[in-house]
């Protein structure tokens, strides 16, 4: 009878442990105020640069998946006319209000993250204006306390998203657009 009791309690222990482990594994890290900057400036011409400081990013350390969403209208330019043209003529933000990214951090080992910067490759799909573009880049990741910091950059072109730049401004906007991101994700 005693050994049955021990077995039973062992079983319960294993089950409880399993349940806790799976809860742990479902941990998510979220940033509601992530920063995304893109720049397509040409030398000698006015800066073509916009910043969005309320980008959402969600990282699941279990599935190693990252999802991010930026509202197009949240991008701010120094020049308000440029911002207007960006929204109305280039991205058509009334029709396509969001930019979305979904990706996999293949080599992410969440347990090993610490204050030292780890470089983790990411591959995923960026969707802007309903057009999808495959993105491959390397993210710099570090963990300070309960915050995971992710920074990185990649290059896209207006053509990737079927954005046509009018001839009159073509030499004032770079062919390649550098996108930088800076997320500070807190445990949820």
């Amino acid at each position, binding site marked *: 009878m005693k050994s049955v009791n021990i077995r039973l309690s062992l079983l319960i222990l294993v089950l409880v442990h399993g349940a806790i482990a799976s809860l742990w594994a479902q941990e998510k890290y*979220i940033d*509601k*105020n992530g920063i995304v900057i893109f720049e397509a400036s040409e030398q000698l011409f006015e800066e073509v640069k916009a910043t969005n*400081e*309320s980008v*959402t990013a*969600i990282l699941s350390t279990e599935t190693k998946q990252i*999802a*991010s*969403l930026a*509202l*197009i*209208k*949240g991008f701010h330019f120094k*020049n*308000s*006319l440029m*911002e207007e043209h960006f929204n109305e003529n280039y991205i058509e933000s*009334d029709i396509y*209000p*969001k930019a979305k990214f979904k990706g996999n951090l293949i080599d992410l080992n969440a347990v090993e993250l610490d204050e030292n910067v780890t470089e983790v490759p990411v591959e995923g799909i960026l969707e802007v204006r309903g057009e999808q573009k495959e993105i491959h880049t390397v993210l710099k990741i570090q963990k300070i306390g309960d915050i995971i910091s992710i920074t990185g950059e990649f290059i896209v072109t207006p053509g990737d998203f079927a954005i046509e730049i009018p001839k009159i401004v073509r030499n004032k906007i770079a062919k390649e657009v550098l996108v930088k991101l800076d997320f500070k994700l807190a445990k949820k």
Partner: protein
Amino acid sequence: MKGKKLYVVLAGVLVLLILAISMYNYIYKSHRDIATERVAYTISAAQIHMDFGKEDKMPKYVDQVVQIHGKITVIEQNAIVIDDKVQAGFIMDAPNDLSIADQVTIKGRCVGYDDLLELVKIDQATLIHNN
């Protein structure tokens, strides 16, 4: 005759000057000042969140100045979340006399709907009322 020519030249210069100034103002017009703009919609956090669920009502709030009231559920460095439905980003850091569960009213620009977090996002917010 000479005097007439001078007038023509002067008028030409004046026209050019006005053109240049209006061009400059068009290209470098100032940004919207949301804090002083008139409020287009006054609505509760729960209501605007619900309206964003209805596709047809959604666009009417985007890019408009909205005044939103509700209870603070999250406080971050430069943003608050109201009733877990609306995220408001302040122009500067969030006022530091705010605390969780405060009833607040904020004014800001509606940026759109974030379907990852299921939040309506507001930026350039200012605090109107806190008690």
